C-alpha cells in the first residue's frame, strides 16, 4: 500500500515506459502512415516524460534535463511535421497512405 500511495520517481518512469512501449507497438503493427506518426509521437511523449522525471529527481535545482526535454519536444514536433508533409506528398503521388502499398523505395 505504501508503494501505491507514495508516488515517486518509479511511477513516472513506469508510465513513461508504458507510453514508449505502446508507441513502439503501434509503430510496428500499424499499416496507416498517419497512425505510425501518431505512435511515434506517443513514443516521444514517453521519452520526454522520462527525461523530465530524471531531471526533477536527480538534478532538481539546475533543470538542465528540463531544458533538454524542451528541445526534444521541439525536435519531435518538427520531425512529425516533416513526416506529415511527406505523407501528404506520397498520398498525392500514390493515392494511398498504406505502408504496404507504398513500400517501394525505387522512385
Amino acid at each position: 500500500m505504501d508503494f501505491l500511495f507514495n508516488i515517486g520517481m518509479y511511477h513516472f518512469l513506469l508510465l513513461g515506459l508504458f507510453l514508449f512501449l505502446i508507441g513502439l507497438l503501434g509503430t510496428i503493427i500499424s499499416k496507416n502512415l498517419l497512425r505510425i506518426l501518431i505512435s511515434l509521437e506517443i513514443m516521444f511523449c514517453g521519452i520526454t516524460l522520462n527525461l523530465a522525471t530524471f531531471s526533477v529527481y536527480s538534478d532538481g535545482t539546475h533543470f538542465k534535463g528540463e531544458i533538454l526535454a524542451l528541445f526534444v519536444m521541439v525536435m519531435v514536433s518538427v520531425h512529425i511535421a516533416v513526416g506529415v508533409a511527406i505523407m501528404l506528398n506520397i498520398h498525392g503521388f500514390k493515392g494511398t497512405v498504406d505502408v504496404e502499398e507504398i513500400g517501394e523505395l525505387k522512385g
Partner: protein
Amino acid sequence: MDKLQAIIFYIVALAAVVGAFRAVFTRKIFYSVLYAFMSFIAVGLLFFALELPYLGVVQLALCGVGMTVLFVFAIALTGKKDEIISPIVHRPRTYLSIIGLLLLTGILACFFRVGSFMSDNIAQTTNGVIPSTKAISAELFMSYGAPFVFSGLFFLAVILGFGVILSMKIGGKK
C-alpha cells in the same frame, strides 16, 4: 504526495495509457487522433504534477493542440473513406509484438529495480527547491541562448520546408 494526489496521479496516468492504447488500436483514424490528444493532454498534466509548468505548457500547446490540428488537417487532406477506416493490423505480427513487448516490459522493470524509488518525492530529492518558470526562462535565454535561437530558426526552416515539400511534384501522377 498524499492519497488524494496519488489517486489523481493514477487517474491522469490511466488516461495517458488508455488514450495511447486506443490511439494505436482504434479502427477509425480520426478517433485515433482524438485518443492521442487525450494522451498528450494527460502527459502535459503530469508535467504540472512534476512541478514543471514550463514543460507542461509546451506539451499542451505544441504536442497537444498543435500536433492534433496537424493530424486532423492531414486526415482532411487524405480523406478517402476507405483510408480513414482502413484495416490497421496484421494479426500474427500483432500477437507476437504484444508478447515481445510484455517480455521487454518485464526485463526493463527488473532493470529499474522495483521499489527502490518508492519513498522518493520531489521535495526530498531537491531539498525543497523547485525551479521556477522565471528561473528556467532566464537559464533558457542566457546560458542556453544559442541552442534556443538555433532551434527556433530550425523550426522556422522546417515550416518553410513543409510548404516546399507539399508543393513538390514527385514524378508520376500530375
